[in-house]
C-alpha cells in the first residue's frame, strides 16, 4: 500500500533521511521508532508532502506521489496527524470537522466513509466540545480533534506523528485502542513514536530509525517478547552495529 523506496530528504541542504526503504501492506499498522533527530518527523512530513524528497520514491496505492504537493497527496488518500497536533486555535471543533469533511467528503471517486457524526460517535468528547475553539481544548482533546480532522479527509493511509506526546497514561491507552481499530475501517497506518513499547503495542511491524537510516525492522510480536532488542538497535546501530543483526539475534 505504501512503498518508501530509497528515500532521501532533509531541510535546507542538510540531509536527514538517507536512502530509507519501508514497505507497508494494505491494512497494516507500521511504526517507526527512534530517538529525537532520528528522522521520524522528516519521514512523516516527506510522505505527507510537507518536505520535498531529494531522491527516492513514495508510492501510495500504486501511484507515485513523490513530486505531488501536500494538497494533492491529501486528495490521493494521505491523511496527516502531525506532531504537536497543530489544531487551528481560532476554529471551533465543529468548524474543524466541517472544513475537513468539506474537502474529503466531496470526493466523487468513493462514498464518504467518515462523517462528522461518525467521528463524533468514535470520539464522543468532540461532540461535547463542538463549540469550543482549538486553543480551549486539553492536549488529549486536541489529539482527538487532530485524528478526527485527518479521518474526515477520507484517507487510505494515515500518518500519525507522536500521537501520545504529552498525554496522560489513560489517554495513551485510548489512542492505542483507537489506532488498533483503524485497519478494520480499511486504513493503513504509518506511526512515528519515540517509545518502542508503545509502538509494539499497536503496530504489526516496527522499524528502528537511527540517524535517518533503517537500523532494524522487527515484527511487533518479537519486540513484545524481547523489548530489549529495540533499545539495543537504537543504541548500537549508531555505533556501527550491523543492520539486520538485531532480527537475526531475535531469531
Amino acid at each position, binding site marked *: 500500500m505504501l512503498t518508501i523506496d530509497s528515500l532521501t530528504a532533509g531541510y535546507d541542504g542538510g540531509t536527514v533521511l538517507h536512502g530509507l526503504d519501508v514497505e507497508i501492506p494494505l491494512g497494516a499498522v507500521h511504526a517507526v521508532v527512534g530517538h529525537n533527530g532520528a528522522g521520524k518527523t522528516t519521514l512523516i512530513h516527506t510522505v505527507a*508532502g510537507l518536505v520535498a524528497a531529494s531522491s527516492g520514491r513514495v508510492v501510495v496505492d500504486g501511484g507515485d506521489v513523490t513530486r505531488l*504537493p501536500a494538497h494533492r497527496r491529501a*486528495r490521493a488518500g494521505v491523511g496527516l496527524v502531525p506532531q504537536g497536533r*497543530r489544531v487551528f486555535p481560532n*476554529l471551533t471543533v465543529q468548524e474543524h470537522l466541517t472544513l475537513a469533511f468539506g474537502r474529503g467528503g466531496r470526493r466523487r471517486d468513493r462514498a464518504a466513509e467518515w462523517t462528522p457524526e461518525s467521528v463524533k460517535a468514535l470520539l464522543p468528547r468532540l461532540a461535547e466540545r463542538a463549540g469550543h475553539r482549538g486553543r480551549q481544548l486539553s492536549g488529549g482533546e486536541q489529539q482527538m480533534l487532530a485524528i478526527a480532522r485527518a479521518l474526515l479527509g477520507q484517507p487510505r493511509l494515515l500518518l500519525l506523528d507522536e500521537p501520545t506526546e504529552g498525554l496522560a497514561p489513560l489517554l495513551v491507552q485510548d489512542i492505542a485502542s483507537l489506532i488498533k481499530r483503524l485497519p478494520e475501517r480499511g486504513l493503513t497506518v504509518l506511526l512515528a513514536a519515540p517509545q518502542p513499547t508503545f509502538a509494539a503495542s499497536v503496530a504489526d511491524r516496527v522499524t528502528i530509525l537511527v540517524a535517518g537510516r533503517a537500523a532494524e525492522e522487527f515484527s511487533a510480536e518479537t519486540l513484545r517478547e524481547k523489548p530489549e532488542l529495540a533499545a539495543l538497535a537504537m543504541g548500537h546501530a549508531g555505533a556501527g552495529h550491523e543492520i539486520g543483526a538485531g532480527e537475526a539475534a531475535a531469531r
Partner: protein
Amino acid sequence: MGALNAHLVPAVDGVAYGLLLYVAAAGLTLLFGIGGVLNIAHGTLFALGGYLAATVSDGSWSSALLGLAVAVVGGTLGGAVLAVGTAPLVERGELPQALLTFGLALVGGDILSTVYGGDEHPVVVPHAVNGTVHFFGHVYPTYRLMFIVIAAVLAVAGTLVLGRTRVGALLRATADDRAMVGAMGYAPWRVHAALCAAAGALAGLAGGLGAPIIGPGPDTADKVLMLSMVVIVLGGPGSVLGAFVAAVAVGEIETLGVSISSDWAPYLLFGMMAAALIVRALRGGLGGVGIAMPGKARA
C-alpha cells in the same frame, strides 16, 4: 451642551469617514493578515475603483450601480494580477511580495495619471441622495448618511462571512497554519488567488462607494494606503473587528479631532499608532507588532 452640539456634525462625519476607511482597509488587512501579502498597490486599486465609478456615473441610480459593479470588477481584476504576480513569491517571505506590489503600485499609478490626468474627478451621485438632510438642527449630506448604512451592512456581512461560513473558517485556518490547510487537501494557490481577488474587489468597491467623499484624484492612492496602514497597525493584521474599531477611531481623529484641535490632530493619529505598537511590543514581543505573520507556514 453648546460645544457638544458644535461637534455633532464632525462626530457623525468621523463615523462616515471611519467606515470608509474600514471598507478601504478591510481588503488590505485580510490579505496581509491571512495571505501574508503586504499590498502596497492597495491604494491604487481603491483609486481605480473611484475613477471607474466617476467615469460611469451620470446622476442616475442605474449608472451609480453600474459604477459600483465596474469598480468591483476592476478591483477584482487588479487583485487577479496581484495573485499571479505574488504566487511564485509566497514561500519567499513578505519583503519580495511587498516590493512587487510596490512596483505594481508605481505602474498602476502612472497608468491612472496618464488616463485620468492630474485633476480630481467628481462623482455625480443620484439626485435623491445628492442633497442634505436636517438632524438635531444641523444640515448633513444625505450621501454620507447612506454611506454609513451601507458600510455598516458591509461590516456586518464581512464579520458573518468570516465568522460563520466555511469559507471564513478556511481563511481563518489559513491564517493559523497554511501548511496544515494544504495537508487537509485545500490547494494553497487557490486560497491565495481567491484572497487576492477578494481583497481587490473590496478595494474597488470601497473606491466606488467612497469616490463622492474622497477622490478620486492624484493623491487618493497614497492617502488611502497610508490611512489603511494606520488602521491595520491599530487594529491588528487580519482582525476585522480590530480594523473596524481602529478605522472609526482614525475617522474621529481626522474629523472630530481637527474640529476640536486642528493643531494636535495629526500628532494624535500617529501618537495613537506609536502607542499601539509600544503596547503590543510590551505584551507580545515583536510578533505582536505585526512583523511575524500569523499565516506563515510552520512546516
